[in-house]
């Protein structure tokens, strides 16, 4: 099993992603610099959180056009699994690998806290350790996580089981109150149609031990690495 983590100037959750993958995989992922034009042979590509290129134009917009992302998109098309977290999710929507866009949070503020998420649809590879309908707890840390898409796409995401996680309470109730950032239908994470890409705003890599406050992230990565090994 091999994994690669993409590093842009301004990525800042790259080390956290590396640590989480290492903990479950037993060895280090390759760290791939944005200016590279070759991806190493890999069974998993992770696009980490941060502020790629300062997020100055629009979150993820410049990174979406970086040399390495052309390679990532090619790999995505042939089915390489891709985990895109937070800024990575924004980059993935900018490249068109995932539908929709991440707008400024409805309250206009950066939000950093643990959130409860309802597992909305199962995808063995990514969330096989969880049951559909159960809740997991991952932290969020973003200013622009308000998922938006048009009605038609939203209906398709709902209808085809492409919604991975929804912001909920700890009992799995998905309501306006639990919608931390104004996302349509409380969407926190989605799959692409082929099911090989997961984009999510919450950070599973941040809760990977009791000392850090929880282990749902470890369960997530253990399953992901297992299913790809």
């Amino acid at each position, binding site marked *: 099993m091999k994994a690669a983590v993409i590093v842009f100037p301004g990525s800042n959750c790259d080390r956290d992603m590396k640590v989480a993958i290492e903990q479950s995989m037993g060895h280090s992922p390759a760290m791939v610099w944005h200016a590279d034009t070759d991806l190493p042979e890999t069974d998993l590509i992770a696009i980490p*959180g*941060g502020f790629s290129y*300062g997020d*100055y134009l629009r979150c993820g917009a410049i990174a979406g056009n970086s040399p390495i992302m052309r390679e990532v998109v090619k790999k995505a098309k042939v089915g390489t699994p891709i985990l895109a977290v937070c800024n990575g999710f924004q980059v993935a929507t900018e490249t068109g690998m995932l539908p929709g866009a991440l707008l400024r949070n409805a309250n206009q503020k950066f939000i*950093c*806290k643990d959130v409860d998420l309802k597992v909305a649809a199962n995808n063995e590879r990514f969330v096989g350790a969880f049951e559909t309908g159960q809740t997991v707890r991952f932290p969020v*840390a973003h200013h622009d996580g308000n998922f938006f898409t048009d009605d038609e796409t939203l209906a398709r995401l709902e209808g085809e089981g492409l919604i991975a996680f929804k912001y909920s309470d700890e009992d799995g109730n998905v309501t306006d109150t639990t919608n931390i950032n104004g996302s349509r239908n409380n969407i926190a994470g989605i799959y692409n149609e082929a099911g090989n890409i997961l984009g999510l705003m919450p950070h599973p890599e*941040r809760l*990977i031990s009791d*000392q850090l406050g929880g282990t749902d992230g470890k369960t997530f990565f253990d399953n992901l690495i297992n299913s790809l090994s």
Partner: protein
Amino acid sequence: MTEITKEIVSEHGLSESEYEEVLKILGRVPNINELGIFSVMWSEHCSYKSSKKWLKTLPTEAPWVICGPGENAGVVDIGDGQAAIFKMESHNHPSYIEPYQGAATGVGGIMRDVFTMGARPIANMNALRFGRPDHPKTRHLVSGVVSGVGGYGNCMGIPTVGGETNFHASYDGNILVNAMTVGLADTDNIFYSAAAGIGNPVVYVGSKTGRDGIHGATMASAEFDDDSEEKRPTVQVGDPFTEKLLLEACLELMATDAIVAIQDMGAAGLTSSSFEMADKGGVGIQLDLDNVPMREEAMTPYEIMLSESQERMLMILKPGREGEAKTIFEKWELDFAVIGKVTDTGRMVLTMGGEIVADLPVAPLADSAPEYDRPWVKTECPDPIKASDVSAPADLKKTLLKIMGSSDIASRKWIWEQYDHMVMGDTIQRPGGDAAVVRIHGTDKALAITTDCTPRYCYAHPETGGAQAVAETWRNLTATGALPLAITDCMNFGNPERPEIMGQFVGCIEGMRDACIALDYPVVSGNVSLYNETNGTGIFPTPAIGGIGLLKQSDHMATLAFKNSGEVILVVGEASGDMGQSIYLKEIEGREEGAPPSVDLAIERKNGDFVRDAIHAGELTACHDISDGGLLVAISEMALAGNCGADLDLVSDLPLHAACFSEDQARYIVTATSETAEKLLEKAKLANVPLQLIGTTGHNELNFGTELSISIEDIREVYSNWLPDLMTVPGN
């Protein structure tokens, strides 16, 4: 060139006697560039001219101190070849004028101070003071400052793990934004600022120089008046993305041995950094200003030297290493320019367009920086306010709710949820506890970090307040199980030319000194911000203290939350019941009076050492220091954090309100299983530490005999809602 008139000298903030000194040093009239340089180098902000005499009296040494005050930040040994490098700095004046950029660049500046020394920043903290909650500007300032602190730290990917926030009318016209950064370095790879090696290249890296922030240091050395808003153009603009690149590029270059010396360009920009490097190294520097990367056209030497554009560094490289360094900075898409060389002339010579535009002797300019022994008057300690001088609460439940929902006590979650406090994956105690705790990546060790000061105590009696601020950080670190190592101080005061303000400064320093000595807890870095006055009204004296402590084993950490039902609650330490300057007195009686709680440093140390030992022995299940609001507030906070109530049975000779709300120092609330509690009581007796059983944890209410029965949820409502309610714009 501009003729130097009396008016121009005075606009540059130089007094007549200071200008006489300039003429003496130069033996001629300075040109405008030289005058500008003298002006910033001799400003209060850069020269510490009013405070130096007193700062020298603080203890700065201990076996674990690697580098004390005088460098970019303080350095302490944390074992295994590792060092913690940290400092706190103010950015008060700019933050009042332009809260977002002022706060953001304050955070950027302090992080640069830390990574200049070779450390990767691992945590940010802050200490914020705003005006009274209902002041028309408060909401705007809170909102801007908090977004600015978050905006910079979040983008850098350094967790902002906590801090403190006060609201008081004394800050209506002068808010305080104090930012602290803690970094981690190897003890054999720490970088200093003394220039060396005649002929070595002087290199400029980072952002280009613009016209922003010119005279920022001078602005920070004067009082505000009604026209201060017009100073907006002197506030710098931050670019955290560039700083993130600068951080990575500097650390990459620091992993080689190409750097001789390095200094960040902070206040007074290129002037201050080049003079400091030359002065510390006892050398001269020649700079060709044509080679400085500029982002605006037709900048004059004056503007280049005084610009406070952010995200810039000055380095002295070993000869022949320019190429290697340039490759690294180009990889990170940053400017890299050789702008001069180290000389043996002892002079700072600046050229532009082939002409010499300034020629100044380095040492006399630095050594002759004015140092004042300003007149001061001591603040006499007011009389204590005894419990019997204060009326008993009519209804304990209503009283507790009022205090828990008051501006000093209510939850700061609205603030810290806007800071990424988890990035880097090592935050093991998040904001909201006594101190934040971050692991040293890849080890079992952890650092506890806190910032504290109780300005109303400092105002009432500076000596006591100064000692209390240091002791409170020490107590907060201890409450997590950490061994306190050292502090950084950020001294925020009014106009030092007024004897009563100077007296506050002297008093606070004296108190701090006593506490640092008694607790083996030296000062390793710091910053002074004076002239925090508007139209002649000064702020409360606010010596904000940032403390760090070491947990050799991170799993020996204590937190404040009640963990389990059926555990015994104990209080460590004794109460006199004095009510002066307490939150109870302020909130319930509307009086801000009396002596602050007295500080007995020997007792502080004895009680703290007892608590820390008990934490390390695994005997405590929770621990929280008693501070603002007193015992019942501390217990409520523990209940809220653990979502677990308590039955209290506090036997005391004191009146109920004194037992519940006095702010006597050197006290902690701890919990333990009932078996362990027996053991603890015996140990405490032997150690001569007062330890008293005061209740049991359980269910979801706080009960206290017939006096009190209140649900945790009712407390949570007032505690959680105060700040969000304040910040909600009416009508939205």
